[in-house]
């Protein structure tokens, strides 16, 4: 004798019982919301992204090599030098060569065409900071101020119409002429570089804290 089939309480759609499917979806949804909560609401304190750049003895470029573009009209960062910033080349013309701290290339330009950077030199037994720019291939330098070793100082370069505005801590702002490059494009960041003509006489260490 044939036994009667018991009707299933579930509706089958796409070969899958709908009630079971809904249950799975609820589980997935719960999983998703827990993931969102964990990813977005982490209670660890935020850290400040600090990079330590080292220019090794005999080299110009610093490590690590970083490739990054600017995404704001104001580049702001904090930098700290230590005793490794001191050097003595016994020749004032070389001693006054500007070492580059940080800055950027203007829209789609190369550093020696259109760029703006902070530069530094150990001169007169102190660490001097300069605005160091190229405007349509012409180099422009201007003294900005003096900073102490082993402490963070605040640096800012603002792009304005026809000029760059350099700010160091609370010192008066310094303006430098800007070249023709502007508008939409890639603005590559430029990182620490020793020289000038002469390479680093010893390892030079600079800590940089980017402000985004």
């Amino acid at each position, binding site marked *: 004798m044939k036994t009667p089939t018991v009707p299933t309480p579930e509706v089958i759609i796409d070969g899958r019982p709908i009630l079971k499917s809904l249950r799975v*979806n609820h589980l*997935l*949804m719960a999983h*998703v919301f827990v*993931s*969102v909560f964990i*990813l*977005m609401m982490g209670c660890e304190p935020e850290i400040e*992204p600090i990079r330590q750049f080292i220019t090794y003895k005999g080299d110009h470029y610093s490590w690590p090599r*970083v*490739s*990054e*573009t*600017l*995404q*704001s*009209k104001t580049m702001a960062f904090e930098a700290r030098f230590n005793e490794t910033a001191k050097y003595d080349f016994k020749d004032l013309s070389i001693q006054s060569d500007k070492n580059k701290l940080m800055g950027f290339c203007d*829209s789609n330009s190369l550093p020696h065409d259109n760029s703006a950077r902070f530069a530094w030199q150990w001169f007169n037994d102190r660490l001097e900071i300069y605005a160091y720019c190229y405007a349509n291939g012409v180099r422009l330098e201007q003294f900005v101020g003096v900073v102490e070793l082993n402490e963070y100082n605040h640096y800012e370069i603002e792009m304005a119409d026809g000029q760059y505005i350099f700010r160091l801590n609370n010192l008066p702002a310094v303006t430098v002429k800007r070249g023709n490059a*502007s*508008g*939409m*494009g*890639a*603005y590559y960041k430029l990182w620490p570089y020793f020289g000038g003509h002469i390479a680093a006489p010893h390892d030079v260490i600079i800590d940089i804290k980017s402000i*985004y």
Partner: protein
Amino acid sequence: MKTIYFILLGCLLMAGEVYAQPLKAAIGIEKTVAGTQYGFGLVLQSKRHWQWGGFYQASLNYTRDGGQLVNPFYGITLSAPLAKADRLTFYANARCGVVNEIFIAVVPGLETELQLSKKISFSALMSVRMSYPSAQLKMTFSL
């Protein structure tokens, strides 16, 4: 605001061009080294699961006077499927666009999409923004 209209219009025009391909709308939140950004996008998906479209996202800056959108990032997005397993699909993603009107940015990433239902999916996208890792969570709706 004009930008948002252009992105929406562009995506709708593209939808007209490729009539057979389904249109998807997404809302998302991305955590970057520079803060959290909120945004939306419209993408088309081919039969082989390639996705392309436009997106807009920005940070919210709260002041005493209210919220304000800052650091807008908008452009085009392209996702290529790497692997598919049941409800999960893995994509290689690239976003190309403009930040703050003039700064061109290219953002590579890896996306994992979880199909919650026929119409809704959830994605986690790991990218590199400003040379630091960023995480984006997206909810996508088939239109």
